[in-house]
């Protein structure tokens, strides 16, 4: 391992100060998180190494520590040592190891620092082991003893404290909506066009990634414009509107549950029937798939990605798009959490094929896509920035080889990483969300808008 990249203070200190009761606590949480799926997986790896090249870390570094099987086996070792007879009795023979300071250090460096939880290895594992979920279990154990790398932990803390991961004060959020609403009215030449806020009984509650409010207001405008054109009954919430959930990455189910509960509170307060998740990969996986499990209960409402909604508008003719307004070559990056782990695969393609004149796929794509390198909380963990940029080269090369001038991606996390890659690898592309591209192609048909609007209002 490069010295520069080695895990440094304050972790070194925290780790060396770990007491045996901390390790016991970590083990206890580790055990609690293991269900029979995981226990089966932890018994299954045959050390065949076939998963190696499925991981962008291994493709980049080509070293042992980046091998998915190595990362997985860091967890398996501890499982065997504590929960299997052979692991307890013939540890060395079956490769079992106790959770000690050294292993904790390796867990932090590998489970947090060399994995984006992208799930590409799981698809390629000979046995079908859900490697990222096992790696996340290791992260959960570390989270229990306060060993989540600082940047990631502070994102979680901010979301818990303020209701959104960027700590945007309520007044700022309301102000943002206000000026974006004025812009929308000018854009569509309709003084009645709105970005509704806290509208009780609206059909849909639309969530955003707080980065949109801070740095990418165009994403909010795009969604607002599409909803306007479709005559949709929707609303923002003034308090809880954050689609992200960094508890998915930190491994802290309790914190993750609280963040999901925030959105449920908004849904209840506003009596909406559909929770619409903005373009955010891990936000989709968290709120669509994981949150009901973190909370141990079913939602009483529908949860959809904005992509499903927009694709449906196009399909039923509720909005019209003019692809000639997007003439540049556009390619699509598939966010792992949305596609490979979330099952939203074709909708974004359907939208882009209707909204652009020149759409090209990158290779590989869909569930076989490569991670951009920004997932798994990597963007928040400055400790591993150098690695993040290095492993992103695979994505940069993929983009370059398409010849595209615009990269669409339905995830603000990916956008941040792609923007950095764009600069670092001099790609010379524009990075946009799918809705931004769709909004650029939108043909406003006031008659249609009004018809749907009055239909939904009645």
């Amino acid at each position, binding site marked *: 391992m490069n010295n520069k990249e080695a895990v440094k203070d304050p972790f070194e200190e925290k780790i060396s100060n770990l007491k045996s009761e901390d390790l016991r606590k970590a083990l206890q949480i580790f055990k609690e998180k293991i269900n029979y799926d995981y226990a089966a997986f932890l018994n299954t790896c045959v050390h065949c*190494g076939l998963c*190696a090249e499925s991981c962008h870390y291994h493709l980049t570094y080509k*070293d042992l520590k980046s091998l998915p099987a190595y990362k997985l086996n860091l967890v398996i070792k501890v499982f065997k040592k504590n929960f299997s007879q052979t692991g307890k009795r013939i540890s060395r023979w079956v490769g079992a190891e106790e959770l000690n300071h050294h292993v904790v250090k390796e867990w932090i460096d590998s489970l947090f620092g060399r994995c984006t939880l992208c799930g590409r290895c799981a698809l390629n594992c000979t046995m079908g082991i859900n490697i990222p979920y096992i790696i996340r279990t290791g992260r959960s154990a570390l989270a229990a003893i306060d060993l989540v790398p600082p940047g990631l932990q502070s994102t979680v803390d901010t979301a818990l404290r303020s209701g959104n991961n960027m700590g945007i004060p309520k007044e700022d959020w309301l102000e943002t909506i206000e000026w974006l609403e004025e812009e929308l009215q000018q854009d569509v030449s309709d003084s009645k066009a709105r970005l509704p806020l806290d509208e009780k009984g609206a059909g849909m509650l639309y969530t955003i990634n707080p980065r949109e409010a801070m740095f990418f207001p165009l994403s909010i405008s795009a969604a607002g414009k599409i909803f306007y054109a479709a005559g949709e009954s929707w609303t923002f919430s003034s308090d809880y509107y954050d689609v992200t959930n960094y508890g998915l990455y930190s491994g802290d189910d309790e914190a993750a549950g609280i963040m999901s509960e925030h959105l449920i509170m908004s849904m209840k307060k506003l009596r909406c029937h559909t929770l619409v998740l903005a373009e955010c990969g891990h936000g989709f996986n968290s709120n669509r798939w994981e*949150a009901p499990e973190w909370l141990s209960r079913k939602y009483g409402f529908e949860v959809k990605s904005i992509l499903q909604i927009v*694709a449906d508008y196009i399909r039923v003719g509720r909005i019209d798009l003019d692809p000639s307004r997007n003439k540049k070559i556009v390619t699509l990056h598939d966010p792992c959490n949305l596609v490979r782990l*979330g099952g939203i695969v074709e909708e974004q393609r359907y939208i882009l094929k209707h909204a652009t004149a020149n759409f090209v796929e990158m290779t590989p794509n869909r*569930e076989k896509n490569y991670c951009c390198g920004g997932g798994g909380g990597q963007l928040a963990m400055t400790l591993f920035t150098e690695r993040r940029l290095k492993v992103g080269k695979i994505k940069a090369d993929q983009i370059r080889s398409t010849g595209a001038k615009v990269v669409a991606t339905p995830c603000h996390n990916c956008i941040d990483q792609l923007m950095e890659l764009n600069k670092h690898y001099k790609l010379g592309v524009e990075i946009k969300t799918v809705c931004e591209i769709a909004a650029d192609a939108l043909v406003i048909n006031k008659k249609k808008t009004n018809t749907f609007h009055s239909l939904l209002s009645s």
Partner: protein
Amino acid sequence: MLTFLRYGVIISFFVCTISLCILVLKTLLFGKKPLHSEPQGVENKGILYAFGKGMMPWEKESAARHLPTYIAGILYHSGIFAGLFYILLLVIPFCPSLFLINALRILMLCGIACGVALFLKRIFKTTLKNISCPDDFASNILVDLFLFLALIDTFISIVRPVLLFTAILMLLYIPVGKIRHCFFFFYSRILFGLFYGRRGILPQKQRQFKV
């Protein structure tokens, strides 16, 4: 002596099966809460995918990238099944036709060749060697030895006592070491299918956006 060893094989087979069942029971004891998220796809379709298309080299990048290893793995396991079938014939006992014996010989020969090749790969490929533990090597040697003796036995039965003894050892070792994957493979692939099937990710047909 042979009768004694035959009984030994039968007993070790039961010990192996019961131990594997206990292992499965132990995993089940970890429990699992029922899932609450609304499924988007069909789990059974995912399971079919996991055991069908999802294992094919044109679908699975790792299999395509490591085609020789992938094929060696298939042949190795076919050889092992042939060896186990041969042991069953010895234990019943049943005199097979020449055609059947020849088929088993071919499979076992391929199995040995591939087993040895995989063993050498584990020794010489550094990353693979570094993720391996003694159990990985021992399991391979034990199975290769078993196949070798079974193959010889189809020609000269003088090795039969050693073969049956090796079979006993192998059966008893299955639940202890990595050979337990002969069972956990199916368990894991089913879970794989359930996950991707439920989320409507795989098979791809499930997720077509209706135009």
